């Protein structure tokens, strides 16, 4: 069902931060904030938890490592132990580089893949911009403003007080 939002656009990060902080303290649910670059301190202001993506990295990396180890050991020792320059079949030290590379490769790709999935980014996805210019020089704060609720006017007031250039209402599904 269509939902109603308030979008307040700022031209400076400072006021925007202040607004966000006040909004939260006033108990207004902040849907999201849009910015041309990562404004620091905003995470705490919005109360966003630290992402758990590094665990994905760990798992993927370990997966790559194990695969590399097992695969090399299998091919060199079990599947066909050829006499290569008299070296032992299980030349573990020689297997290290490939293990390392696969760890990094799979770890890295896994992380990025997980990120794209989690952030719902994929080629051809239509951009949903609260206001034009959030990718250029506008900072936009978006709050939920259910019809008839009192969050709407409150949020509008707070944002204008904190120096929002303008605040308007939108409909759209989250």
């Amino acid at each position, binding site marked *: 069902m269509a939902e109603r939002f308030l979008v307040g656009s700022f031209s400076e990060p400072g006021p925007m931060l202040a607004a966000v902080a006040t909004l939260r303290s006033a108990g207004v649910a902040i849907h999201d904030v849009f910015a041309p670059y990562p404004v620091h301190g905003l995470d705490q202001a919005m109360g966003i938890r630290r992402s758990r993506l590094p665990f994905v990295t760990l798992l993927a990396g370990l997966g790559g490592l194990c695969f590399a180890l097992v695969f090399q050991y299998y091919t060199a*020792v*079990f*599947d066909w132990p050829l*006499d290569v320059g008299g070296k032992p079949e299980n030349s573990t030290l020689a297997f290290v580089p490939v293990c390392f590379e696969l760890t990094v490769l799979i770890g890295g790709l896994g992380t990025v893949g997980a990120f794209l999935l989690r952030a*719902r980014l*994929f*080629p*051809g*996805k239509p951009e949903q911009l609260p206001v034009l210019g959030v990718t250029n020089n506008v900072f936009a704060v978006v709050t939920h403003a259910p019809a008839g609720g009192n969050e709407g006017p409150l949020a509008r007031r707070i944002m204008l007080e904190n120096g929002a250039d303008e605040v308007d209402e939108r409909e759209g599904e989250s």
Partner: protein
Amino acid sequence: MRLRGIVFGFVVLGAGGGLLARGATRIGVHQGYAPEQPIAFPHKVHAGDNKIACLYCHSAARTSRHAGIPSASVCMNCHALLEKQTTAIQRLKEAVQQERPIAWTKVHNLPDFVYFNHSQHVVSGVACQRCHGAVEQMDRIEQAAPLTMGWCLGCHRAEAHVPTSTFARVAANVRGRPTPFAGEDCTSCHY
């Protein structure tokens, strides 16, 4: 939603890629190749119905790397006596009279750079059918086996008493590997 479409696309791509890869690995494998011969020679009749031993005609296989396509004169050993006449036999006899060699079409062409010696295998008691398939049931000879390296090795390992199944190999490896068998050397076939 759109994401599902994307995922589906990836699945399709993956499947297609897999098929292409499989196709790529069949390049140069002519399993099932059954060309027409200048003289339609039915192995079914000779090796099957009349139970002529393979090595009677392909006598070279006993001593040579080539199995040896028999000379037309060998055919005449019997056909001189048999009165049965067909156009094929007619053409054979002409060839013999004119001492004209018959250019048979080679069916089993090994990949390049591979040396295969028939005598070695015949003497070691490998049945012809093991590689050539049920020749005695073929009217026109066709390549039964893939004749790939992996296929050769499978047999060589079995015969070399080198465990073929991975688990058996693992077990063997734990026990300490059996002495290598020349049949597994590259130079058994490549030189």
